[in-house]
């Protein structure tokens, strides 16, 4: 059936089963492939997107339940926090394989929008749901602090 969802500020129509996870609607139907599949059970965070401003795991939200909500994916990130996070990530060369990093960045942007000067503990709590098998965690932590600094400055 035709479902209408708002993604990155645009209203889009998806012809899919309303039970289809938002992740696969984004990837397979809207070709927004920056959001990744990692586990399908909300245990790794690779599929993190923003739904009405909050980070959610797109693998565990039915696309039918996303009707009427504002969805932002990595492709649509544009806030000051997003720019600070992406530039800090680039300058510190956080990425390795990069596959989880869209999700990491979505979670980090949410954190900084809520908590502009996070402590290490705040970072651990906000980022615990995002797995990186390359274990880039040392640099994720450093980049979040760096982004916080840049937002302040």
């Amino acid at each position, binding site marked *: 059936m035709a479902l209408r969802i708002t993604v990155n500020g645009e209203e889009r129509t998806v012809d899919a089963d309303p039970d*289809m996870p938002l992740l696969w609607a984004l990837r397979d139907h809207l070709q927004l492939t920056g959001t990744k599949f990692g586990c399908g059970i909300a245990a790794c965070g690779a599929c993190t997107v923003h739904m009405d401003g909050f980070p959610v795991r797109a693998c565990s939200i039915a696309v039918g339940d996303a009707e009427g909500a504002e969805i932002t994916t*990595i492709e649509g990130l544009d806030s000051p926090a997003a720019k600070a996070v992406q530039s800090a*990530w680039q300058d510190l*060369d956080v990425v390795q394989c*990069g*596959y989880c990093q869209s999700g990491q960045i979505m979670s980090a942007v949410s954190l900084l929008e809520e908590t502009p000067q996070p402590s290490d503990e705040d970072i651990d709590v906000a980022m615990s749901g995002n797995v990186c098998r390359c274990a880039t*965690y*040392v640099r994720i*932590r450093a980049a979040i602090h760096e982004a916080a600094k840049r937002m302040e400055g």
Partner: protein
Amino acid sequence: MLAKRASAAPLDRRSFLIASASAGAGLVIGFQILPKFAYGAAPGAGPIKVDPNAFVRIAPDGTVTVLCKHIEFGQGTHTGLATLAAEELEADWEQVRTEHAPANAALYNNLHWGPVQGTGGSSAIANSYDQMRYAGALAKAMLVAAAAEQWNVPAGEIAVAKGQLSHAGSGQSASFGELAELAAQQTPPSEVTLKDPKDHILIGKHAPRVDSKSKTTGQATYTIDVMRPGMLTALIARPPIFGATVASFDATEALQMNGVEEVVAVPQGVAVVARDFWSASKGRELLSIEWDESTGETRSSDQIMAEYRTLADQPGLVARQDGDSDAALASAAQVLEADFEFPFLAHAPMEPVNAVAEITQDGCEIWTGSQIPTVDQGAAAQILGIAPEKVTVHTLYAGGSFGRRATPDSDMVAEAVSVAKAIEGRAPVRVLWTREDDVQGGRYRPMYFHRMRAGLDEDGKLVAWQHRIVGQSILKGTPFEGMLVQNGVDLTSVEGANNLPYAIPNALVDLHTTDVGVPVLWWRAVGSTHTAHSVEIFIDELAEAAGRDPVDFRRELLAEHPRHLGVMELAAEKAGWGEPLPAGRARGIAVHESFASFVAQVVEVSLDGGTPKIERVVCAVDCGRPINPDQIKAQMEGGIGYGLGAILHDEITLDGGRVAQSNFHDYVPLRIEEMPKVEVHIVPSEAAPTGVGEPGTPPIGPAVANALYQLTGERIRSLPLSKHELRGA
């Protein structure tokens, strides 16, 4: 979104000007094919002739594209390979891009492996160090020749820097892009001189990663992102136990699922082919399959380990023998014995394995992230009954691998091609694996059992050593068997044990290779994932028995091994070895060589309830001349985190042959709150560069175990640590 096709398209003269220079000529000549697979070793520099056209392209807009024969799956190899070429080319780093080279065993073979294009054994930089520098130097010489011709000045008077050529006498200057077309018509010189390392501006300095921007904006393309016109998605129902086969299946219900187009039998199981992932996934749940389990592996892990333990009572095939260890043990003043157990481990890269296959009129195109693309090329050709050169392999970034994407039997490519063939090539097919498919899909780091015995004399001197290893061979039955299994000993089972660096007059390392019906594979650092663990813990036990400090004890035994010694001393010094720690904290150390790189780590641990907390890791690495120090640090950080997750939490267990774990809730990855502070120190060196993708992983487990012993008084000899209840002593 289309995957990039440029890498396999015919070279376009406008955009690949330099690439056209010697079209039709034998492109690469004179590569030294090593008499045997130089696994993990840095072979002596032989004569090497390089055609720059295979590796460097310069476009009229000045973009320098470095073609990378190795896959980028996080280890930073594209940045490293580009650094080597750009250093000699004198390119401006800002103008440098990278691209995966197409599969071609003649042009892009791993020089340590013979005629195979492959990434593994932390060999990318080691085997490419000369090749990529020569490629850059030759391309520069062609640009210089072009400028000399255009300006009518002697080539020797032309200066090159930051992507610009200039001639001081005439005041002429031009960019690489402006000269690219004329450069393409030059003949590469037969000889060039490489730069003196003291003049390096990129090697050993900071060159930012070439893939940071695309990977922080969602633009990087992985196999899972490939979309071909009309492409279908397949999920495969695989046997519930390894080695079982399909007896019969009923697809009636699955076929009624909206979006499911076909259900086909393939050698790997039953494939549900659908218009998207979700339909395929729902369809697969509705399949009814009768499995024939008569040929399957039905043992449980406990049973297998019990059999290994019994086997360890008997001598195995000798991998190393010095002196007479039996006699030395018999006359030793003190004999220690310890058994170690290691579980199966899944690689669990973030991107579950996958591949896309498209059967065309001319042959077949494959999109995947493979560590051995030319082997995959052959596998696809064999399934389709066509010549390998009819198979084009597009290599894409992989979302991690850690060895999982280096399957000698090309599992993911074989599946995609088999499904495409089963639907008679009517559409491109992508085969995706779910996380459950991945965790339960085998190709694990094998289970191992180790029995260690050692003897000390009256003075506490280590006089005897016996190390018996029991476990499956990774290489048996693969194309690599002939090169890496010697006298029945799979070198990947004993590496890290048979090259024990400690000076012990009487030493024996032997091996029982077992027969278990579970597919196994190399896992980041391969044999050293278990051998380093048992050796480094046992050495600590022996130090204690000898009444010696662990660093002091190793120092004496490593006197003949300056590079082991160098990293150990550096890590110990930077960590403040011997200095007092706050109550509730303890230190442990381990040092290990893998793939000709040397790493020592000192960890500080504490206990949070019964749970170990790793507070700090001080790591020293000697990987020869450092190419990109920041990426060396990144690989040490990552290697430590990867190893730490495994030793803290992970095991794959079999229950009646069925895998007990299925996803990240029970195959638990390391998370950010568990990641220690990591300091990395690089030993300055002018030795030939070696790899860093794997060597950071082996020391972390034993260093943690040694530190926990200081805290708890308990020697933990089976993994993962989460199986043990730990209490402060």
